[in-house]
C-alpha cells in the first residue's frame, strides 16, 4: 500500500503546476483550466487525508467542490464567450491595460 503522504505530495505538485499555469499563461481559457487543475489537486489531497483518517467526510467535501467547479465553469465560460463576442481578442493582457 502506498502511504497517503505520496498522494499528498502528488497533489501539492499538481497544485503548484496549476498556480504557475495561471501566472504564466495569457489565454483566459488556459488560465481557467489551470485553476481547475488547482481545484483538482485540492480534491486529491482531501481524499488522501480522508483515507488516512478512515472517514468518508472528505469525500463529501470533494463532492461539494466538484459541484462548485461545475457552476464556476458554466458562469466563467459564459463570461468569456460574452467578452469574445464583443471583441475578438482573447488575452488577459490585451484587456484593459494594467495601469496604475
Amino acid at each position, binding site marked *: 500500500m502506498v502511504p497517503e503522504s505520496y498522494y499528498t505530495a502528488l497533489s501539492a505538485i499538481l497544485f503548484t503546476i496549476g498556480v504557475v499555469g495561471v501566472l504564466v499563461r495569457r489565454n483566459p481559457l488556459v488560465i481557467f483550466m489551470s485553476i481547475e487543475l488547482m481545484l483538482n489537486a485540492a480534491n486529491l489531497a482531501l481524499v488522501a487525508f480522508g483515507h488516512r483518517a478512515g472517514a468518508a467526510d472528505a469525500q463529501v467535501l470533494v463532492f461539494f467542490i466538484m459541484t462548485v467547479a461545475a457552476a464556476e465553469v458554466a458562469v466563467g465560460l459564459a463570461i468569456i464567450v460574452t467578452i469574445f463576442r464583443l471583441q475578438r481578442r482573447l488575452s488577459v493582457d490585451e484587456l*484593459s491595460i494594467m495601469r496604475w
Partner: protein
Amino acid sequence: MSAALVPLAPLLLVAATAGLLIVLDLLPPREGKGHLGVVALAGVVAALAGALTLWGREGRAFGGMLLLDNFAVFLDVVICYAAALVLLLSMDYLRRNGMESGEYYILVLLATLGMMLMAQAADLIVIFLALELMSLSLYVLAGLFRGRLTSAESSMKYFLLGAFATGFFVYGIALIYGATGTTALDRIAAASGGLQRDPLLLIGFGLLLVGFGFKISSVPFHMWVPDVYEGAPTSVTALIATGSKAAGFAALLRVLFSTFKVAQPDWALLLWVVAVLTMTLGNVIAIAQSNLKRMLAYSSIAHVGYMLVGVVAGGALGAGGVLFYLLMYTFTTVGAFGAILLLERGRQEAVELDDYAGLAARHPLLALTLALFLLSLVGMPPTAGFAGKFYVFGAAIRSGYIWLAVIAVLNSAVAAYYYLRVVVYMYMREAEGVPTRPAPSFAGRLALGVALWGVFQLGLMPAPVLDLAQAAVAPLLR
C-alpha cells in the same frame, strides 16, 4: 415558525424573496421590471428587521454548521443595509442605462444571501460555498453593463482572479482538514491547540488567508479592484465595495479570533505588514487617479488597510472597532457611489474629475451631499468616518501598536488630499462644456438620504453603536 428555524429567519427571508422574484419575473409585464426591485427591497428590509429582532439570541442549526450570535446579527444588519441601499440606487439607474432585468434583482438577492451565510457559517465548507454563491452572482452582475467592453472585461478579470483565489481557499481547507480531521470551526480550534506548529495546519491557514485577502482586496491581492470597480455598473460596484467586503471580514474575523486564537501573535504580525502595505499603496495610487470610480477603488483598498489595523489590535476594542468601521464604511461608500451614479453628463455617467467642476453652483444640495460623504471618507468630525478611524486607531494604540497607528494617521492625512480635491473642483472651479446634471430619481435620493442619516447618526452618537459592536464580538473572544 419552529424554533429550529429561528437562526435561519433572515436567510430564509432573502432566499424566499429570490424565489418569489424568479416566479414574478415570468409574469407580465415583459418590459419594465421596476416592480421586482420593490419586491426585492421589501425582502431585504424584512430580513434586516428580522435580524434586528434576533439580537441577543443564540442558536445553532444543521448540526452546528450554521449559527446565530450577536456577531452574525450585526453583520447581517450591515449586509442588509448595503443590499437595501444598492437596490434603491439600482431602480432608476438600471432603467436609464437600459439594463433593467429580473435577473439583476435575483442575482443581487442571491449575492446577499451568500454574504449573510458567510456571516453565520460555522464550518469552513459552508463559508466556502457561501463565498462562491456571493462571488458567482457578483461576477455576472459586474458584466451586465449592456454593450460596454469595460464591463465585460471587468467581469472576466473579477472572475479569473476570484476563481484563482478560490483555488487557494480550497487547498487551504484541504490541508486544514488533513491536520485536524474536520472542517467545523470550533473543532479545528480544539484540535489546533495541540498542533500549533504543525506545518500542515500553518500552510493551510496561510492559503486560507490568501483566499480571504482576495475577497477583502488587501495588498498584494488587490489588483482586480480598480478595473472591476471602474468597469462594473456603479450600483454593482457599490455592492462589491460594501457587502462583499463586510462578508469577507465577517468570515475572516470569525476564523482569526475564534478558530486560530492560538496563533494570534503570528497572524497579528503578518497582518501588521499587510495593513501598512494596503493602506499606503491604496492611498498613494489613489492620488494619481482622475476617474472618480477608480479613485474610490483605491480609496477602498486603503480603507481595508485601516480595518486591518483594528484586526491587528484585537480584543473587544479592535474587533468591535472593525465592525463599527464596516457599518460606517457601508453608509459612506454606498453614499459616495450613489452620488456618482445619480450624476450624468450628456448621456454618459459623470465619472471624470472635470465633470464635477462647478457642480456646487448649479446643484448645491447634491454637491453638498457628495462632499459630506467624501469628508466622512477623510475622517473629518463630526461624520461617521472620524468615529470609525478614532476607535480603530485608538484600539491600536491601546494594544501597543503605536507605530501602526502613526502610519495609519499619516495615511489618512495623505488621503485627505485626493478626497478634498473633488470638493475643490465642485466648489471652486468653473464648469465648462456640457453641464453635469443629476438624473431624476426618487429612490436614488432616498438612498442618499438614508446613507447621510447613517453617516451623521454614527458620527454624532457613535457610543451606542460601538457598544453594540463590542457586544457583537464578545462571542468570538470568549
